[in-house]
């Protein structure tokens, strides 16, 4: 991939591509709208998913009785295994008509719809991280809280949550990474129009969907090069996510040790 993306970086066209707008008739193939589209879908998804995931992980880590806890965790891991395309497929026939008739009007294919399903998709990833963080708190401290007569909620709030903070941030980073990298949901639900989105009910196109949609036959065209620019951005983003995760786990390790 670098092999084909190289002329782009070398020629200095890369930054043009990122910053410019997309209007083929004027010879402009910038992918700035897709960059904003990706962010505009991934961030709301994270915001919707975060409270739900936090709540679920609280329940799964501490609040529920142990058998229910195990059942819930299995359920969450099964959710992570449900094919993305199935979420998208069901949403096209269930959520999209609902959005169209009840809430947003228009075609129902918009950023809000995509964000909701994306939130569902990244929830299991975040929950697994959160639960790991919450339940890796030292046993002695947990027993101490129990011995002092603390309730489960108190244990959670004043002992586990502060200790698990790096794990929670790591889970958020991971969730954001998955949300940015997902192709099918935004391709099927976000509408794919190329414009910088202004409101939540605009339709937008993400970087990933852009790659999936543009399969141009002319290998030398700027249109074709733009998908490699999109690929490089995603690649760099994924690397940044991994490095961030590394730093965070390093931090929590040091704190534990």
């Amino acid at each position, binding site marked *: 991939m670098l092999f084909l993306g190289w002329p782009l970086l070398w020629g200095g066209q890369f930054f043009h591509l990122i910053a410019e707008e997309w209007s083929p008739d004027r010879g402009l193939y910038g992918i700035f709208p897709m960059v904003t589209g990706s962010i505009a879908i991934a961030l709301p998804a994270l915001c919707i998913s975060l409270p739900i995931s936090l709540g679920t992980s609280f329940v799964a880590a501490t609040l529920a009785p142990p058998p229910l806890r195990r059942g819930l965790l299995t359920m969450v891991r*099964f959710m992570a295994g449900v094919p993305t395309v*199935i979420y998208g*497929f069901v949403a096209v026939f*269930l959520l999209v008509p609902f959005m169209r008739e009840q809430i947003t009007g228009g075609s129902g294919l918009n950023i809000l719809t995509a964000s909701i399903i994306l939130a*569902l998709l990244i929830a299991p990833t975040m929950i697994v991280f959160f639960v790991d963080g919450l339940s890796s708190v030292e046993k002695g401290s947990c027993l101490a809280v129990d011995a002092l007569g603390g309730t489960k909620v108190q244990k959670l709030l004043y002992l586990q949550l502060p200790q698990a903070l790096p794990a929670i941030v790591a889970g958020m980073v991971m969730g954001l990474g998955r949300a940015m990298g997902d192709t099918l949901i935004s391709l099927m639900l976000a509408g794919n129009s190329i414009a910088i989105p202004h409101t939540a009910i605009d339709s937008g196109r993400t970087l990933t969907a852009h790659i999936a949609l543009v*399969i141009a036959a002319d290998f030398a065209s700027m249109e074709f090069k733009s998908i490699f620019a999109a690929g490089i951005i995603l*690649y760099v983003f994924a690397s940044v996510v991994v490095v961030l995760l590394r730093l965070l786990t390093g931090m929590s390790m040091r704190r534990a040790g």
Partner: protein
Amino acid sequence: MRRLLEHGVAIFSWSGTLLLLTVLLVLLGYLGYRGAGAVETGLIFGTIPPLDALLLRRQVFDGLFPAIAGTFALVLLAVGLAVPVGLAAGIYMAEYCRGRSRQVLSLLFDVLAGLPSIVVGLAGFSLTIALHRLLPSRFGPCLLISAFSLGFLILPYIIRSTQLALESVPPALRLSAPALGATKLQNIRYVLLPARLPAILGGIILATGRAAEDTAVIMLTGAVASAGLPRSLFEQFEALPFFIYFISSQYSDPGELQKGFGAAILLLAACAILFLGAFVIEQTLSRRFRR
């Protein structure tokens, strides 16, 4: 004030959990409700008798059989390509790799694991173009390239699970064979691998599930809406996830839509079975270690 906060947190947590489970159940329930009527042998084999289709005596045109066969061949190839490499790399990472190169390699594998699948697809697509330029014959997107990219996608998961499995062998077990004079290789071959086989197998099954569900990669590297049964490695093919995506965007009549729902149920069932397999293996494993 604090009491109020604590109650608030409890209520908030439970309602979050309920909301999540409700949404999941509604989505899957709707799928089951709409697709229940579609699941029958006609869905898979169309009007052809199942035995004829399975023995490749007659072509299936109006069923899902080609898509299922395509997915099956694809996953088999991808896992077949990825497992030997993944196992070897996992063993290397766990047993041989030390110091600086270990850090660099594990960072590299992490980046690979975090890569969006569409980027892997794009890489496969570039490979196709490169091959197209190098080789004189007509060489386009095909089954082999797809399987190769897909194998690349699941490789980091296999490496990571193998490595974790080997590293979690209890120290007493790890040291006993070398203490008796076994070489390192013998130790790995006769003690460590058999002891952790279920965990490694579980990792491979989960990776298989990922290969079966992924759509973005095959979309760029050779899946098409109608190609019939896969005839050779160098031709385009049909696949279930791609079929579902295709139906959702351009179905033409209710019958086709119904087929889409049927396909979604089949894919979900396949992934559920794989998940269940991994789960059962994990359970037997934890029981064995407790003993």
